[in-house]
């Protein structure tokens, strides 16, 4: 029964943080395309099944490598600066099954994971890993969504403007900003923003989780490098597309310049952005250690690093599996998205 409740819980979070809705919208678009006869799911079905098989295999490999890697580094989850009496520590470890042979631990852990039970966190002993992910993921994800919207809006607009005004002062300025955005680490942007918008002019709260105002600065810091990347990718993509024959055809047919750009060129110009977005979305949704630390966001980002430092085997495994799944799913969406944006691409 465990897996039913946990997958239901998973659906609820994905809904709450607004991941499920876009997936739903996406499916609706596909259904619409299918109905209008522009796309058929049957060819894709085989593709999807194969991809899911690969995903299961990838998850198994990632699980196994992480499992043995974590246990091969020195130290254990119950090491403290004040040493616990070895006999007492042995009994605590026995309670969590850490005294069993490694092979048995592996199989048990694998079986539990397949049932959707990621076990208790070893460091935060009042919590199960599933609870920690359930509390943290929605927060990281909603921060990520805001950051993503910001990154896409700003990035695509800047990239398009740059491409159209290629070589002009606007292009140069925007691309200088984009380069700075890529080069400047998060924490520098964050420090500058905090200095000006929190300490000097108290417009935003310094940190912690609360209402929408708490999201703005961290979302900006999280999204800035992505915005810069998206801008550069859009520019490259647009420049490439604008020289294509079909654009010339459109212009020759007397289509207005704005329409050429938005209706004809943008679709093709966004292809590089879309392939970048898959892994980027997975990364942005699962949170960032730096931004979450600076703004004290109780999300997931911190756990990726902290769980490893604490030798919190179970929590660390939960994070790794979640991230793998997300990366895989997002890449899958990207591949499907490609076929919509570019009719020449076929799934196989």
């Amino acid at each position, binding site marked *: 029964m465990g897996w039913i409740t946990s997958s239901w819980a998973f659906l609820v979070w994905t809904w709450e943080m607004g991941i499920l809705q876009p997936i739903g919208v996406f499916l609706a678009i596909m259904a619409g395309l299918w109905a209008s006869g522009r796309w058929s799911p049957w060819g894709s079905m085989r593709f999807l099944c194969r991809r899911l098989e690969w995903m299961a295999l990838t998850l198994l490999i990632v699980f196994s490598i992480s499992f043995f890697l974590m246990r091969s580094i020195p130290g254990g989850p119950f090491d403290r600066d004040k040493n616990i009496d070895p006999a007492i520590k042995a009994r605590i470890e026995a309670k969590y099954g850490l005294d069993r042979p490694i092979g048995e631990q592996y199989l048990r852990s694998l079986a539990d994971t397949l049932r959707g039970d990621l076990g208790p966190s070893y460091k935060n002993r009042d919590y199960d890993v599933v609870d920690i992910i359930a509390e943290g993921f929605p927060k990281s994800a909603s921060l990520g969504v805001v950051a993503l919207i910001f990154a896409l809006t700003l990035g695509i607009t800047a990239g398009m403007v740059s491409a159209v005004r290629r070589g002009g002062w606007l292009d140069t300025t925007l691309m200088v900003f984009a380069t700075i955005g890529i080069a400047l680490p998060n924490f520098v942007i964050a420090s500058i923003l905090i200095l000006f918008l929190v300490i000097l002019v108290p417009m935003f709260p310094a940190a912690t989780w609360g209402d929408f105002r708490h999201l703005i600065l961290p979302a900006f810091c999280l999204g800035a490098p992505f915005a810069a990347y998206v801008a550069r990718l859009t520019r490259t993509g647009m420049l490439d597309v604008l020289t294509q024959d079909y654009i010339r055809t459109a212009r020759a047919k007397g289509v207005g310049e704005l329409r050429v750009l938005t209706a004809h060129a943008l679709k093709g110009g966004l292809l590089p952005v879309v392939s970048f977005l898959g892994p980027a979305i997975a990364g942005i949704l699962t949170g960032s250690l730096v931004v979450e*630390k600076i703004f004290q966001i109780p999300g997931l980002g911190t756990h990726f690093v902290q769980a490893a430092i604490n030798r919190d085997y179970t929590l660390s495994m939960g994070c790794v599996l979640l991230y793998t799944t997300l990366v895989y799913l997002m890449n899958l969406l990207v591949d499907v998205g490609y076929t919509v944006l570019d009719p020449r691409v076929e799934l196989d």
Partner: protein
Amino acid sequence: MRRDRNRNLLALGFVAVLLGGGAAALSGTTDEKAQFTFNNATEVESFDPKVVTGVPEGRVLRCLLEGLANPHPETLRPVPGVAESWDVSDDGLVYTFHLRQDARWTDGEPVTSADFLYAWKRFLDPEEPATYAYILDVVKNAKAYYQDKTVTDFAEVGVRAPDEWTFVVELAASTPYFLDLTHFYPLYPVPRHVVEKYGDEWIRPEHFVGNGAFKLEERRFRDRVRLVKNVLYWDAANVRLESVDILPVDDHVTGLNLYLTGVVDWETDVPHHVIPELKKRADFKPKPYLGSYFYRVNLQNKDLLKRRLVGDPRFRKALYLAMDRQAIVESITKAGEVPARSLVPPGIDGYDGPMLPDRNLEEARRLVAEVKRDLHVDKLPTLTILYNTHETHRQIAEVIQVQWAKELGIPVKIENQEWGTYLTSQRQLDYDICRAAWIGDYADPNTFLDMFVTGGGNNNTGYASEDYDGLIRKAGKERDPAERMRILRRAEELLLTDLPVLPIYYYVTKNLVRPWVKGFHPNVQNIHPLKFVWIDEAEKRERSGER
């Protein structure tokens, strides 16, 4: 054309839904600010007194639960808690606690001696003893019960509850600091009726029941713990804070930002690079803290040459004498830390510890030359200083590296390891010299000194001295407090002669506290029970514009 428009509409809807989803995750998380907010600097490991060992956990548990006694906010001497009063037998072995009859759990059940008996029995459970079980080794038969298992019946352990309101503890030997343990958080009572019902799940916020001055209202992981005044608390009339927020901000800079923008009223630590600035402020007053920063020397080094070398006390003395402790506290730690010339920090009542000589380069060089001559060593091997990855530890190690290399001609390498690896290296004696620190659990030299008995769980140096072990044992049996302190002094003298550890500095507290927070007193253990804390609202209104 129409299809395009439709698709644009869909895209717009997509964005709207994304926004809506983001907003949905945020909704319902806005809270009114608590009357008092402090930053505990980390998410606590657990609410279960049996499981926890850390300072941050202590801060939270002192709000949620109450032991036999409470620490006095200034002196930390035990003042009545669940026990109204207590008697000590003439031989100092039997403590009888008289519990008050109006103490209640937050679910209304009375707090009785059975709860303490149950908590201590659970604490000493031979199948699954508490992390801190050894703290009760002073109780008769406790160790025999939970560890040696030569006593199998808990009734033979020196803890009894003759009636509902009487709790009796019989010690194996007179222990002057035993009363301090009555307000040590791992020994707090647990609600038997709740623990038995929910097992390990009893600490979940929906089940949790406490008996402290505050009641758990909400716990959001890595976000905040919200407490409200416990109206059932026997001394509720004297608890003045209505609500408390406990934040787990681990980044000191973020913590400072929160303090400066008025979100946090008490910040428990500060980023060390701004300490000189902060010291100009009236609300930052570092005070002596019962903690020592020192280097361990591995006396069982696997490298035989190194083992012979550092195995010579004269060589260790030379290492000690060449360290410029003054420079370290002045140019690196900067908060007013005191250079240490002993292991036990000053500030423990009744204990006047021994002191090593100050820095002396000439003497240090002479000792090194002597050792080299006696051991027929021409070329000194490279010693490695191991520290856990942290900016301050690195800077200190660098200073010492330079001093040893320049003044004594000892080639020194420094090496950092992340926390878990560092702990393992230290425990397995896989190091030459290793950074270490110790914060006292109770205000008595014993909490520092018994660490270095042969085979002690936190010895981690391979130091083994029968004389030293004998002195610590003897002090444990001594009934006259003054004489006991003299024995402990002799033990520390011996430790400082043998020098398995090289003292560097004594810690200071780094609390930032708003001026309108009253009832908050500096003390050596840095314990500030919120039961006694209150806000001067008039002063707060007047001064809240200040940063």
